[in-house]
């Protein structure tokens, strides 16, 4: 037996030996399933994650993000910082150096002109660039030589890494896209479906909203990669079908975004053909507390405005008790399984800016009750609902129509009832809730309820724009057509001051520490936001696919060049 094992081992070693040194295309075909089918490979023309991710097999940015949210160079030779002189001391410019000898898949060299062109392409006044936010605040781009790109900003940028980083901001080839500027962008079908890139694969066939076929890029910078000679990227179906295709039938090697309920997850895993992979980013399901009074008796235009502070929720003890009464682990187990984890933070990751705020993770019903008793909220009339000064602890709790959220509502209502809080539930159609229509009473900005639940996140790893949503002057109201982002109507001069400081501070560590502080001010210090679940990316991968690393900071196909077949 031992001998046989040894023999097998030896045989395997021989079989693996060539793979270790890898030959481009030696592992044959890899099949990828995006249940939302791909409609373009040009990330600048689509805000759909599926299009951005599919495009990332072909097109690359200057720098990408790894699984920990750390930036690493792709087309750039290194990451510019203030220390290495790449970022100017006054934070108004950043200088990128391209790797030497880079060529496009058609064999022509990659130059700084391509990078500059990409900026011009996305910021063209007549074009509708889906990733315009990545290029905001750029004054000019200089290209002193073929390998150097100097990005100059209009104002000091403490986080200068927005442009040209991550899967949403890849570099386009100037020669190919020159005719596609502005209004012509969308009509360049050939370019958008078969872009010339620097990535590990090139497109051989593109059927819109169906299948993309790719093969290894003969000019990829690492001669040994990619190990797969062919990629088939299939679309269609739903999350359940996608998960099943990897986990149960084994037809596919990887399926994107297989968000299915925890029971189905367990069932699929029993299939034994694959595993679920998750990675946690910044998407947090939370309960937002309204600091202003949404009473329907108030005249229209004054409901949920700063004119009328909330009668009960302005009491910090009430907010804290509401948070303490929630069992977050149960919510995860019921709603998300492997795709979620309980959190007390608004900014749960990456590690350098995630506060070590874990107090709320254990439910403390007795503590919450005692807190309310101590604050004077007692059930004086014996109806099971606490009251104080004639005000009852009675809340309207709204969210969108979604089976998981309705389960959450039912559970949270149960806990709050136990606490002595009366809860009326409301579920709103998501397109109305998030629609932002100033005439509708049901949008999340108008917040005609006491508490509301939804999820939100921020793009990339820099939390500054996200945290600046909670500034005093971002409060929505009738005067700004209810367009503010500070939907809690939270206002604290200390918070505003700290954020101002953040906007002039450079350096990842220092900024991270400040984000933590801001996060704590909104969560554990005031409980204006009650975070519940950190929702991760959740995909399925076959057991025969090796080298796959899940990433929530960039596209999930970020390291497709390193994928191999288990032999």
């Amino acid at each position, binding site marked *: 037996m031992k001998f046989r094992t040894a023999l097998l081992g030896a045989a395997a070693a021989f079989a693996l030996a060539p793979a270790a040194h890898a030959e481009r295309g030696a592992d044959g075909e890899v099949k990828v399933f995006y249940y939302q089918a791909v409609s373009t490979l040009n990330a600048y023309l689509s805000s759909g994650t599926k299009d951005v991710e599919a495009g990332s097999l072909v097109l690359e940015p200057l720098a990408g993000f790894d699984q920990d949210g750390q930036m690493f160079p792709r087309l750039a030779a290194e990451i510019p910082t203030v220390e290495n002189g790449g970022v100017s001391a006054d934070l108004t410019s950043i200088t990128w150096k391209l790797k030497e000898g880079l060529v496009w898949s058609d064999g022509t060299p990659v130059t700084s002109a391509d990078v500059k062109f990409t900026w011009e392409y996305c910021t063209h006044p007549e074009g509708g660039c889906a990733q315009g936010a990545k290029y905001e605040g750029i004054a000019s781009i200089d290209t002193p030589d073929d390998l150097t790109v100097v990005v100059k900003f209009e104002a000091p940028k403490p986080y200068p890494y927005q442009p040209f980083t991550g899967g949403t901001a890849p570099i386009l080839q100037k020669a190919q896209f020159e005719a596609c500027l502005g209004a012509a962008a969308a009509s360049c079908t050939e370019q958008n479906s078969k872009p010339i890139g620097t990535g590990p694969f090139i497109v051989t066939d593109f059927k819109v909203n169906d299948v993309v076929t790719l093969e290894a890029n003969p000019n990829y910078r690492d001669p040994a990669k990619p190990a797969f000679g062919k990629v088939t990227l299939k679309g269609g179906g739903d999350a359940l079908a996608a998960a099943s295709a990897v986990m149960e039938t084994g037809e596919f090697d990887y399926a994107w975004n297989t968000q299915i309920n925890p029971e189905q997850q367990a069932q699929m895993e029993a299939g034994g053909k694959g595993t679920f992979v998750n990675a946690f980013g910044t998407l947090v399901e939370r309960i937002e507390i309204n600091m202003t009074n949404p009473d*329907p008796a108030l005249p229209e235009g004054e409901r949920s405005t700063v004119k009328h502070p909330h009668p009960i929720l302005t009491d910090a003890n009430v907010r804290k008790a509401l948070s303490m009464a929630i*069992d977050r*682990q149960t919510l995860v187990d019921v709603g998300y399984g492997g795709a979620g984890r309980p959190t007390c933070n608004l900014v749960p990751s990456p590690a350098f800016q995630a506060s070590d705020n874990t107090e709320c993770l254990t439910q403390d019903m007795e503590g919450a009750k005692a807190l309310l008793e101590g604050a004077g909220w007692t059930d004086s009339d014996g109806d099971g609902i606490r009251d104080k000064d004639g005000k009852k602890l009675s809340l309207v709790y709204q969210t969108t*129509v979604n089976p998981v959220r309705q389960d959450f*509502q*039912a559970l949270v*209502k149960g806990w709050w009832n136990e606490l002595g809080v009366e809860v009326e*539930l409301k*579920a709103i159609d998501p397109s109305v809730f998030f629609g932002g229509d100033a005439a509708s009473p049901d949008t999340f900005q108008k917040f005609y309820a006491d508490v509301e639940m939804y999820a939100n996140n921020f793009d990339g790893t820099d939390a500054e724009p996200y945290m600046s949503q909670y500034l005093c002057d971002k409060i929505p109201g009738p005067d700004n057509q209810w367009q503010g982002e500070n939907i809690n109507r939270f206002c604290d001069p200390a918070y505003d001051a700290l954020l101002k400081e953040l906007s002039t501070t450079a350096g990842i560590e220092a900024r991270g520490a400040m984000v933590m502080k801001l996060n704590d001010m909104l969560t554990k210090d005031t409980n204006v936001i009650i975070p519940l679940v950190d929702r991760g990316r959740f995909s399925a991968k076959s057991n025969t696919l090796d080298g796959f690393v899940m990433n929530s900071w960039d596209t999930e196909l970020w390291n497709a060049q390193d994928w191999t077949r288990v032999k």
Partner: protein
Amino acid sequence: MTESVPPSAPPSAPETVSAAVARAERVRGPWADVWAQFRKHKGAMLALITLGVLALVCLAGPLVWRIDPNFIESDTVKMFKMRNQGPSLAHPLGTDQLGRDMLARMMFGGRISLAVGTVAMLVAIFIGTTVGVIAGYFRRLDGLLMRLTDLFLALPLLPLLLVMMFLFRDSIASTLGPRLGTFLLIVLAIGLTSWMQAARVVRGEVLALKEREFVLAARSIGTPSRRIITRHILPNVLSPVLVAATLGIAAAIITESVLSFLGLGFPPDFPTWGRLLYDGIAEIRTYPERVMWPGIAISLTVLSVNYIGDGLRDALDPRIRGR
């Protein structure tokens, strides 16, 4: 004395019988005839019993089965054990994904769904019949009313419903309270958007009836229109109205669930049959019974109402009666 009385007894017997029959007929009246005929329709009787049982269970059931339909075990460990159970003695219809008792939810939901279905149907039938009879009987109003009907038919119903809910929900809810307000609004909204078919069918029927001899005769002796309508027309259009009504109940139950699904119906902790059905669909692969219970309840209700309508139509038609 004894001689005079006995001889008179035998001849009086036939008189007594015929008098009794006459009295009995007077007592029975036309509706008793209908009932007698209706009872002969086996399907209709079965349906009546089924519907009666369903209604009784929903109305009286919660008095016996005293579990709160929204009760969730607060002890997490117990709650997880109670989730997604199959039928058992403790939970005859099993439990849902949060361990809530399905029987209690079905009974609670049935109350709402049956009430919404019935009341919305009554509203729709009342409007439909009124419009249909007036349009069919009074030629001058025909064009106007039928174009109105066309207009309503052409309107996309769901957006219309949504706009109605959107405009009136808050004001009605604030005057009548959220629950009664929602109920009234849903019933009215469904009723006001589903009367058109009934109106068309009734109008066609009235147009034909108007030219029949008995109506002409009634008119020739100077019967006022109001009388002709209530006395001659309405009883004769009863059968199409009943058919429309039966279909209306089913449609109303489904429409209510659509509204709830879009977040414009009852609050999410109100388990109506339609909502239970929608909630169950997500887990049809793993727990098909979750869809089956509300599905069966809705189907049984709709089928029963259809059969009752069928039986009523037969019973109300004098040409079929007695066959």
